[in-house]
């Protein structure tokens, strides 16, 4: 065990897997000499050389499409989108080429798309998006979103080893803010949910950065015992863990940072409303970002992103229900 930042854990996982499996290569804009916009691949060029650490042209469709091609002839590309927002420019290749390949012709596409996502640091409308729901709505893509350094490393290694295209959502606001113990060596974390804190009166279901918001918001919340479920994986979605938590707590707040409509949180809430309805002692409360582009100016941005206060408020009201 060593203590690493969330960012350091991502680098560590990528490095370990590249050492273990020579089929793995990283490709993206400025991932080579510069080590990536966030320095995730800092030092990789020196260790693995230009054949396995590739600076690509500025072309997201090209990054995803060529990665698909490389993967069907035996490589394991890990693509970095400089910001998850730019995946919109490679959307078609990801959704239509990569996502539907195996179903159509039994040809596996083992690629990983690293998506630095989320807001909270005045990135503005084009550097703060949470695109995961688009990909949850695209059959054939897996989607994972770690909240801790340990899971960031393990889920990234799991994504690289997975024979399917995996969208790996790494939350930029966690990169250096979150530290934690990380096991040495290469290990794959299963694509399942994790109980971040046990509780009995209410459960907050979240993923990524919002897990930390949930923990902070419900820390010793007027003596109530609040469970926090960290989904970790959105596709596959750990339905059993969600239903079990609702069965146990009977009250649920679904929290995500993405724009509210048709977000991951909507799917979780809909699942509960259909399959755990009898277990509920109150409405399925959602806390999310309203349907606005993420504004740049700090007072505006913090007015839309789910805050500790808003989550605490929502939990208080539901507990009092």
């Amino acid at each position, binding site marked *: 065990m060593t203590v690493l930042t969330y960012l350091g854990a991502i680098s560590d996982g990528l490095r370990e897997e590249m050492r273990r499996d020579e089929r793995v290569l990283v490709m993206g804009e400025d991932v080579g000499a510069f080590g990536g916009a966030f320095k995730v691949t800092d030092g990789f060029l020196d260790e693995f050389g230009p054949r396995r650490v590739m600076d690509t042209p500025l072309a997201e*469709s090209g990054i995803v499409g*060529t990665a698909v*091609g490389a993967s069907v*002839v035996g490589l394991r590309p890990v693509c970095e989108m400089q910001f998850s927002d730019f995946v919109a420019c490679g959307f*078609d290749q990801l959704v239509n*080429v990569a996502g539907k390949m195996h*179903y159509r*012709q*039994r*040809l596996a596409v083992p690629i990983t798309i690293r998506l630095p996502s989320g807001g909270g640091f005045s990135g503005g409308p084009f550097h703060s998006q949470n695109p995961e729901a688009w990909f949850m709505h695209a059959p054939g893509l897996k989607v994972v979103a770690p909240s801790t350094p340990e899971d960031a490393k393990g889920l990234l290694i799991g994504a690289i080893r997975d024979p399917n295209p995996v969208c790996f959502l790494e939350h930029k606001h966690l990169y250096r803010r979150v530290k934690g113990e990380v096991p040495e060596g290469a290990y794959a974390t299963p694509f399942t949910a994790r109980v971040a804190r046990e509780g009995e009166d209410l459960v907050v279901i979240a993923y990524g950065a919002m897990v930390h918001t949930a923990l902070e918001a419900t820390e010793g919340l007027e003596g109530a015992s609040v469970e926090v479920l960290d989904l970790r994986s959105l596709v596959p979605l750990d339905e059993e863990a969600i239903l079990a938590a609702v069965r146990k707590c009977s009250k649920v707040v679904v929290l995500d940072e993405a724009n509210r409509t048709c977000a991951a949180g909507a799917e979780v809430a809909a699942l509960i409303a259909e399959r755990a309805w009898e277990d509920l002692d109150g409405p399925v409360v959602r806390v999310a970002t309203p349907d606005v582009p993420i504004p740049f100016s700090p007072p505006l941005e913090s007015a839309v992103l789910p805050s500790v206060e808003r989550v605490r408020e929502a939990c208080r009201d539901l507990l009092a229900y």
Partner: protein
Amino acid sequence: MATTTPRPEDVLPGSALLSDDDRAELLRCMLLMRILEERAMTLYRQGKVPGSFYDGFGQEAVSVGAAFAMAPEDRLCILHRDLGAHVVRGVAPARILAQYMGRSGGVTGGRDANVHFGDASLGCVGMISMLPDMMLVAAGMAMAFKLRGEARCALTWFGEGSTSRGDFHEAMNWAGVQRLPVIFVLENNQYAYSTPTSAQFAVDPVEHAAAYGFEGVTVDGNDVEAVWDATRHAREKAVAGGGPTLIEAMTMRMHGHAAHDDMRYVPPELLEHWRGRDPIDLYTTRLTELGIDAEALREEVTATVDAAAADALASPMPDPARVRDGVFCEGEAVPLGDGRAPWSGWRDPDRSAAAR
């Protein structure tokens, strides 16, 4: 000027590498494509082919000629006018007809439609509808070959209309800046659905190649040996580290975009002109002069297609109970396999030396 039309002396050395058996095989593959598509069209009219129906009538030389230049270890992305390439790579005729009919015996087992298939075990990636997305997939395969230092290449086809999409540019640029062993075969059949080239681009797209740092060549897309030879040259260059080639095959789409399209928008004299240049008629005449019995070939192929149709019709519809299987790969990721490569050059050491 990026364009160079191969002069006879270019073609000859290539042709010298073709045995009579090779020539017979080229004609056989074109005939198989033609007769399979005619049969599929009949099945479509009989209501046995669901959805829509696309064919490559009149363009047989482009897919057959180019695929014939590919080695077993090469990889292909085959498009919607290119049934001949599937035939060259070794997809059984019955599986092709079953594919059109959405039967369990089809290449995709009824999951994808008509020409949207590729036999992964034969080194082919099935196309998707979005054009020309497969150019990037082909470039990516070539990128892997180059990174691993393998003397192999990737090839894909696409129409002239598809050159307007951004993915054309991203793939051309990627191939150029990384000098990838990839061959792009541009099938200029004059139309994109109903859209003439005049609404598609200002300059013939082969002219783009130079600005990406590689060669663009134009060939007669209705001369199967010319297409084969240009592709063979491009492959030699590619596997020798010489980078990509854009081959523009000039041809004509002789049928509607799909079965429902009566082509009212195409001037009759244009069709008339090209009808006189049918690639199969041209090659039949040539081989007959060389003493090859084209008639026998046609009969053999017709018999093959008859048998294939019977097999395909006997194939059951897919089982709905398994419709949700396979969205994800549950086991190991199995890369593409090697395809059939009928050219004698791949067997004869001297000849293949010329190409390998």
